[in-house]
C-alpha cells in the first residue's frame, strides 16, 4: 500500500502508518483515516461524577418529599445518599483538573453558553443546601435552615442530574451531539433509578416503597430513552454496538432491566403481604424483614446499571470522536443534499 492509496484521493479511508485499523471502503474519504476531532481528554472521574452527581441530584427531592410525609427513615436515607453524592463530586472534578485551586476558576464567571459553567454553579449551590438539609435529617440541627436547604436542594438537584447531559450534547462529538434530544432523559432516568435504588437499600422495605417506585420508574425511563437514542443515532450508534462501549452498554441495560423487574415484583409481593399464600410469600419474601436481601440486591443491580450507563456513554463519545467517518459521513450527506 503506498502513500497515495493511503491519502484517500481514492475515496477510501484506509490505515494510517501506525497501523490504525482500516476503515472499510464504503466509508467516506478522509485524511489518512485520522480523526477530524480531537479526542476528549477527560478520564474516569468525569463519568463517575456524572453518576454520583446524578444520584445526589435525584435524592434531594426524595429526601424533601419523604421528610414532608414524615417517612423519616426514607428521608434520612435519601439525605445521606445526596450528601454522599455531593461529597465525592468535588474531589472527582479536582482530580480531573489536577489542582484544587483550578476548580475555583470555574466560578470566575457565569456563562449560560457553557453547561460546565452552569453546572459548576449548580453544584456549588446544591452542596451547601444538601449539607444543611442532611444536618436537619440526620443530626436534627437547625431544622428551619435545614428545611430551606432541603427545598433548595430539591429544586437544584434535578438540574444537577441533567445538566451533565447538556454538557455532553453541547460538543462536536457526533454520538453525543446527535443524541441531544434523548440524552437528558437518559440521565434523568438513571438518576432517578440510582437515587431510588440507593434509598431502597438504606431505608429497608418498610420505608422504601416510594424509592422503589422511583427506581423502577427511573430505570424504565432511562431504558426507553436509551433505546430511542440509539435508534435516532442509527449508524452513529456504532460505538454502542461494536465499539469499546458495547459491553458496558449491554451490561447497563441488562442490570437496569433485571433490577427494575425484580424490584417491581418484590414491591408488588410486599404490597399483597396479607394474602395467605405461603408459597407466594416464600418467593417474594413478602414480610418486610424477609424482603430486604432481594430488594437490596435489585437496588445494587440498578446502581451498577446507572453507573455503567454513564460509562458506556462516555466511552462511546471517545470512540465516536476518534472515528473520522462518524464526523464526516453525516456532514457530507448534509452537504450533498444542500
Amino acid at each position, binding site marked *: 500500500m503506498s502513500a497515495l492509496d493511503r*491519502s484517500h484521493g481514492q475515496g477510501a479511508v484506509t490505515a494510517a502508518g501506525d497501523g490504525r485499523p482500516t476503515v472499510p471502503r464504503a466509508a467516506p474519504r478522509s485524511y489518512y483515516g485520522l480523526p477530524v476531532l480531537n479526542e476528549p481528554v477527560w478520564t474516569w472521574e468525569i463519568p463517575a461524577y456524572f453518576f454520583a452527581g446524578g444520584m445526589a441530584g435525584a435524592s434531594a427531592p426524595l429526601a424533601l418529599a419523604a421528610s414532608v410525609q414524615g*417517612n423519616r427513615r426514607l428521608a434520612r436515607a435519601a439525605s445521606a445518599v445526596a450528601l454522599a453524592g455531593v461529597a465525592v463530586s468535588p474531589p472527582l472534578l479536582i482530580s480531573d483538573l489536577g489542582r484544587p485551586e483550578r476548580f475555583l476558576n470555574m466560578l470566575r464567571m457565569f456563562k449560560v453558553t457553557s453547561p460546565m459553567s452552569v453546572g459548576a454553579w449548580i453544584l456549588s449551590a446544591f452542596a451547601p443546601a444538601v449539607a444543611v438539609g442532611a444536618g436537619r435529617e440526620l443530626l436534627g440541627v437547625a431544622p428551619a435552615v435545614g428545611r430551606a436547604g432541603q427545598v433548595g436542594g430539591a429544586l437544584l438537584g434535578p438540574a444537577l442530574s441533567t445538566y451533565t447531559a447538556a454538557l455532553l450534547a453541547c460538543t462536536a462529538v457526533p454520538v453525543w451531539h446527535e443524541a441531544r434530544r434523548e440524552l437528558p432523559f437518559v440521565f434523568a432516568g438513571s438518576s432517578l433509578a440510582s437515587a431510588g435504588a440507593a434509598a431502597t437499600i438504606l431505608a429497608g422495605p418498610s420505608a422504601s*416503597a416510594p424509592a422503589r417506585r422511583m427506581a423502577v420508574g427511573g430505570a424504565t425511563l432511562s431504558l426507553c430513552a436509551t433505546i430511542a437514542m440509539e435508534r435516532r443515532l442509527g449508524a452513529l450508534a456504532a460505538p454502542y454496538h461494536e465499539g469499546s462501549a458495547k459491553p458496558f452498554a449491554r451490561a447497563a441495560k441488562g442490570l437496569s432491566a433485571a433490577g427494575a423487574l425484580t424490584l417491581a415484583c418484590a414491591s408488588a409481593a410486599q404490597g399483597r403481604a396479607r394474602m395467605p399464600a405461603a408459597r407466594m410469600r416464600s418467593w417474594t419474601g413478602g414480610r418486610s424483614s424477609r424482603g430486604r436481601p432481594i430488594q437490596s440486591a435489585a437496588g445494587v443491580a440498578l446502581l451498577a446499571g446507572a453507573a455503567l450507563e454513564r460509562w458506556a456513554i462516555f466511552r462511546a463519545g471517545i470512540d465516536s470522536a476518534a472515528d473520522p467517518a462518524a464526523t*464526516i459521513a453525516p456532514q457530507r450527506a448534509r452537504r450533498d443534499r444542500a
Partner: protein
Amino acid sequence: MSDFELPTSSWQASYGEEARERVGFFTDTSLCIGCKACEVACKEWNRVPEDGLVHRGMSMDNTGGLSADTWRHVAFIEQRNAFELGDDGEGGLRWLMASDVCKHCTHAACLEVCPTGALFRTEFGTVVVQEDVCNGCGYCIPACPFGVIDRREDDGRAHKCTLCYDRLKDDQTPACAQACPTNSIQFGPLDELRAHAQDRVAQLVQAGEQGAQLYLADGDDGIGGAGAFFLLLDDPEVYGLPPDPVDPVRRLPAIWGLTALAAGTILAGVAAAVTGDRHRARRR
C-alpha cells in the same frame, strides 16, 4: 433548533472604541509548495514545544494534525487526479498540499463553552486562550468541530493558534503568513480577503481546476463564518477538514429546554413516587 446570536460574536460592541477591523487568513492551497515554513515559523515565534519525532509515512507529513503543540499543520495528499486524465487513462498524479490552522470561528464553540473565560474574543475578532486563566477543564476540546484546540500534557492547559495576538498588537503580520514564501497564506482584513477569494476561485475554475472550492469563505455556514478560510482543490474531508461543521452551541437553547424538561421529569417522578404512599395512613 433556532440559532441564537452569541454574545461573543457581537465582539465589536463589547470592545466599543477598542474594537479593530476583523482580520484573518485566506489560505490559498493552490499556491502551497509544502515547504512547512509556516509550521516552523509558528513554533519559533510562539515557542511551541516539539511535537514528537515520529515517522508517519503519510506522504511528507510527519506532524499528523493540529494539536496543543502544532498550531499550523501542512497536509500532504498524493492522488490520481480524477479531473485530468493522463494518457494512461489513469488520472494524472497530483500532490495536494495545504496548511491548516485554527479557524477563529465567528461562533467559536471552544470559546462559548469555556467555563473560565480563558478563551476570549480579541479586539481583532480572533479567538485566544489566556493560559493563566485556563484551568484545563478540557471542555473546549470536544467542543471544537475542527479538532483544533487540545490540552498540553505538561501544563495541563489548552493551547492553540492565537493568530499571533502579540504581533497583531504591534501591527505585525502573523509569523506563519510572514514566513510563507508563495503567499499561500494571505493575512488581512477579513472582508478584503473574502472578496479576493471569490475572484481567485472563479479564475481557477475557469482555468480548469474543477475541484477548486472555497471552504468557510462566507458567513452563512454552521460556524457563522470563519476568521481563517481556505481555497481547496478537493473536498474538505480529503484534507481532514469537516465538510459541513456546525457550532454545537447553536443547539444549546434547545438542549437547555430539553434538559429543563428532563429535570422536571425527575421532580414529577419523585412526586408520583411518593403520592399514594400508605405510610401516613398507617402511622396515624
